[in-house]
């Protein structure tokens, strides 16, 4: 079965009891067991829940993994993966990553004695330089956030294998419609399912998908022991969202590509970051690694500084000012003060997140309406 057919059917078997075409939503904390010492497939919803399992089955298929685990949020999933590490271990993380991941690594994982170095994952030389004897894992995003840098995942994985490192890829921005990191050699795929997978800004969730079943068991042990599981209600909504994932992603990509070109030509815009633009430094890697589109996210710098950027984000009427991304409606935000405010200021500037940067999550509204809105906001 092809991608879209799997997104609708895999993990969504008809209900055997009633024939319901959509699997029922199991809002239950516990499950009645056959006898003392005997366990059914499910015993307690922290350990496993049928609605959550359906979603895990779907995403495992779409990401070409052997299994998946659904968490309460994207950050809970990232933390779930970080709990594989022990005191003394070292992580190399990308410089173009979500602010929350930066904060987790620098201000939470450090308390357990895990250290982190940030490196430009688009350059192997940069990874080499950050490598330590204690390095156990690489964490990267492609496209990065908010600068949309593209890491050559396959190349990165080949290098990491030679050093015996785990590679975890936050695939939130690409989604399995465009890129499937496990096929390129990654060990773990992480998603904030809150974004494109759910797609309607109405559910929070995180996912980890892996190839290796032992790794899956280890992660499941950690998830069950620490408890940050996805609610069945959110799992239901995210499963429902995944049924239109491919349709939505194609439209997000199409609209974002047009807006990227438009902004690139605009006299008030200093620079546009979009993997589909010829000026993007990793344009050719993006072309090979991303199938059929370059995603729905783009960032741009306006000429001037914070006040000019603020003027634009405050002036849009269709694009709404909010963090998060990946949903049907278009959002606009100012990374330095919003999504990436949890970076230390020096690091933010060092990694190119300056005060004139604006990030767009291009929704699936009519492209003319989107372009008109940006145009009027920039021309004010």
């Amino acid at each position: 079965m092809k991608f879209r057919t799997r997104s609708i059917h895999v993990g969504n078997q008809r209900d055997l009891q009633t024939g319901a075409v959509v699997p029922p939503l199991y809002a239950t904390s516990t499950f009645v067991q056959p006898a003392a010492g005997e366990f059914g497939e499910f015993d307690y919803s922290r350990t496993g829940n049928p609605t959550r399992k359906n979603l895990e089955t779907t995403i495992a298929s779409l990401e070409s993994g052997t299994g998946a685990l659904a968490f309460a949020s994207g950050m809970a999933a990232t933390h779930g993966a970080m709990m594989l590490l022990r005191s003394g271990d070292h992580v190399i993380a990308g410089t173009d990553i979500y602010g929350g991941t930066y904060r987790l690594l620098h201000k939470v994982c450090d308390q357990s004695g895990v250290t982190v170095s940030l490196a430009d994952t688009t350059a192997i030389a940069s990874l080499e330089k950050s490598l330590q004897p204690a390095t156990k894992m690489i964490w990267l995003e492609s496209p990065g956030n908010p600068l949309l840098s593209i890491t050559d995942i396959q190349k990165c994985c080949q290098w990491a294998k030679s050093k015996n490192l785990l590679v975890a890829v936050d695939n939130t921005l690409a989604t399995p419609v465009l890129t499937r990191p496990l096929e390129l050699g990654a060990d773990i795929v992480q998603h904030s399912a809150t974004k494109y997978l759910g797609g309607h800004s109405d559910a929070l969730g995180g996912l980890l998908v892996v190839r290796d079943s032992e790794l899956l068991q280890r992660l499941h042990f950690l998830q069950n022991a620490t408890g940050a599981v996805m609610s069945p209600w959110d799992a239901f909504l995210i499963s429902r969202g995944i049924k239109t994932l491919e349709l939505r992603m194609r439209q997000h990509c199409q609209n974002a590509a047009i807006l990227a070109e438009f902004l690139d030509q605009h006299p008030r815009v200093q620079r546009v970051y979009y993997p589909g633009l010829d000026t993007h430094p990793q344009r050719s890697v993006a072309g090979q690694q991303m199938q059929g589109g370059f995603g729905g996210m783009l960032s741009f710098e306006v000429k001037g500084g914070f006040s000019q950027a603020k003027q634009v984000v405050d002036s849009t009427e269709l694009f709404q000012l909010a963090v998060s991304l990946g949903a049907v409606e278009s959002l606009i935000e100012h990374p330095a003060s919003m999504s990436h405010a949890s970076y230390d200021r020096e690091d933010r500037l060092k990694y190119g997140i300056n005060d004139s940067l604006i990030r767009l999550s291009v929704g699936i509204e009519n492209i003319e309406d989107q372009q008109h809105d940006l145009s009027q906001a920039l021309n004010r």
Partner: protein
Amino acid sequence: MTNEQTPTPPGFSTTSIHAGEQREKPSHSITDPIVCASTYTFRDTQSVIDYIEQKQDRGEYGRYGNPNEWVVEKKIAALEQGEEAVVYSSGMASMVGLLMTLLNSGDEIIFFDECYHRSREFCNSHLARFGVRTRQVKTGDYAAMEAAINEKTKLLVSESPTNPHMSIVDLDRFATIGKRHGIPTLIDATLATPFNVRPLNHGVDLVMHSATKYMGGHNDLLAGAIVGSKNLLEPIRNLRGIMGAINSPHNLYLLERGLKTFELRMQRHNENGLAVARFLENHPRVEKVLYPGLESHPYHEIATETMSGFGGLVTFYVKDADWKETAAVVDATKIARIAPSLGGSETLIEQPLVMSYFQCTPEQRQSFGITDNMIRIACGLENTSDLVTDLDQALSSSSVTPSVSESAIK
């Protein structure tokens, strides 16, 4: 959109995502909250009086409406380019609510005869009990419809496309008959959706939808809607408040959510429907295909003139097959699931004879145009090639042995 600089109305997806929603919502959430309230509180007696005197537009009691319903009603009205919409707990609830409002004892209505069998049943078995007579004329016979009109006639009704024959009504002609005689017209446009055709723009007075189908789009809710002018809908809304067929806030939220991907889904349903119809038309085991997008369809011309696409529903006849051999084709599909309904992400397949007309006599079935070898497939959103491959293997593998045993079919 509120943007005064926009000269043109917003595009279809912009409307389906944003219309009817407040720009700034309670708690500033990006999505509408699900308001699970059976009743709505008043600050003081004066505000109750203001509400009764219609100085305040607000909720009173859950049976009269709820905030989730208001958003959906505004969205559907905007998509149909109608003044207002009234949403119900199911498509049939909206049909019944409308007929019970507009008709009095002694009145008559005229139906084009290809119609949803439960609509027909309600008219023949229940409206008749209240002294309302239903006249049925052959679908597409406008002269017969006009000839059936008398001073008692209060409503002209048709589906377009019809189910399962996929006949297309000339909406201008249909609306003109109503206008000439001063009789309101109703089109059940469930199979078309406002993405493919907007009957109000052709002069039709009322449009009905089973929003369970394409509007909800995920086979996970029931809903109905009627769209039309404020004047026509006011008594309909009032009776709904008395009869109580209101939808639940949870369901309405799912419907609102479904509408946000309406255009993308309809584009795909249209594509899949046409591709499957073309494939079936060229298959040696298929006698005939009914799909308005095919050149062979009797209403192809009017369909292409008035519709921008033809949806996901395709009806076909298996060549030289009895009902059991036809059932074997249905049973051999692997992606399509056997179920009534249509318009969701999952492809559904059914044999009308079995699913909807099993209890009828052969004569009744013949009069409704339901043959033993008829299959209806409601194409979902899956990859086109998977649907075609599935039907191909089902038609090939099922040719030998029937899959059903002896049965009490009439």
